[in-house]
């Protein structure tokens, strides 16, 4: 029985995790540990923070996230199309054009509706 590429990939995933953990552990062993109160203050330009940073925060990317989800899923559909593009010929080309046009129209709509502006 032989390892396929995916098996090696799996080993790589585990090993890279181990490698990263090993780096942290080494540093933990080597580093000095002089605990002083003042060191543990959150940095806010030299002042005590006046409020926690974990608040309900408006990040302006909600609409981008939704668009991203749509486009990402649709581009995933394009991958198999790209691979067998050569074998199908004209039909694949027409299908591809249609699909990309649909994506393009969606994007055009989003731009026209000014969904991408910040203010």
């Amino acid at each position, binding site marked *: 029985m032989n390892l396929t590429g995916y098996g*090696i990939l799996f*080993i*790589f995933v585990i090993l*890279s*995790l181990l490698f990263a953990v090993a780096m942290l552990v080494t540093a933990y062993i080597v580093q000095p540990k002089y605990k002083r109160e003042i060191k543990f203050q959150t940095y806010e330009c030299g002042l005590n923070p006046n409020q926690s940073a974990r608040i309900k*925060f408006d990040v302006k990317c909600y609409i981008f996230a939704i668009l991203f989800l749509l486009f990402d899923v649709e581009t995933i559909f394009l991958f198999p199309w790209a691979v067998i*593009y050569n074998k199908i010929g004209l039909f694949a080309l027409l299908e591809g054009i249609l699909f990309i046009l649909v994506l393009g129209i969606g*994007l055009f709509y989003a731009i026209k509706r000014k969904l991408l502006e910040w203010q």
Partner: protein
Amino acid sequence: MIYDFLKTFAEGINIPSLIFESFWAVLMFAFLAAFMIIVVLFLVLFERKLLAAFTVRKGPNRVGLNGIFQTIADAIKLLIKEDISAYNTDKILFTLAPLIFFMPVMILFGLMPYTNLLYAVNIPLGVVAVMAVTAFSSLGLILAGWASNNKYSLLGGARAVIQSVSYEIPLVLSILSICVLAGSLNLKEIILAQSGGLFHWYVIPNILGFVIFYISTLAELNRNPFDLPEAENELIGGYNTEYSGMKFAMFFLAEYAQLFILSLLGVLLFCGGFQSPFGIYFGVGFFIQLEQLFWLFAKTFCLIFLAIWIRATLPRIRSDRLSVFCWKYVLPLALLNLLFISIYKFIMGG
């Protein structure tokens, strides 16, 4: 060669092939990990020296001959530096974030073919795996921004979200155009489809795709002019404001390793990978491998040089323009490019 030698040796003493293969994978990993660290140490020095040259300075010149050991000294300093996590940080996520940021880069090193014989992982879905792993690392930034309990980090994390969400798609679309051209998702096959010298490289028909790929890469890497998540003049250090010691070093290491590996990916996809631009190799036997490595790194460092040059020249882009620029200009262009490439492919080789 070494693989065959070890393989016969292992068969000679009756080690099951599964164990041997795993051992080989571990060996490859150790090799690539050492390689990555050397590359990063060199790359940091390379960038600092080059930026110094761009701005009429000398750059680091004290440690070792003309400063060649500067980055090693920096690495040791970061290793033995005290690791501080402030009050109210989410300790688990705070530690997990650099891990998550660092891990994918290491996997990416394994996914790349370096010469036609030297590669660790060769899977039919290579490109998809690369995309998946690349997208993973921005999760680390978001976690770091949230876990730090620092407002600057939070803003940096939020910017990282917008950035990775926006530039992921042009990146995928530009890579997709290459897949259409090559008809394969395997990185090695994509490279071999470009054999035959400079004029067979995919950068020639797909120059627009290359530009889009490069812009998106810079955005994914958080480099100038897209270094918003860590914009030091606005957000101090962005997501890594609260990090120190080894955790910071891991962010730093992973960032430069990513710069290297994504430039390498650009070379693989657009510039014929390890192939010589003249179409023929000058060496014979084992030297062909060395020559392939030389061409690969030469092209990669050309792309890295370009990135450093851009960093020395351009100011930072405005944070609200970043996503608008992507969705309004880069993405429609990427779609058009994909259309153009599929028609081109249909006419030329369909």
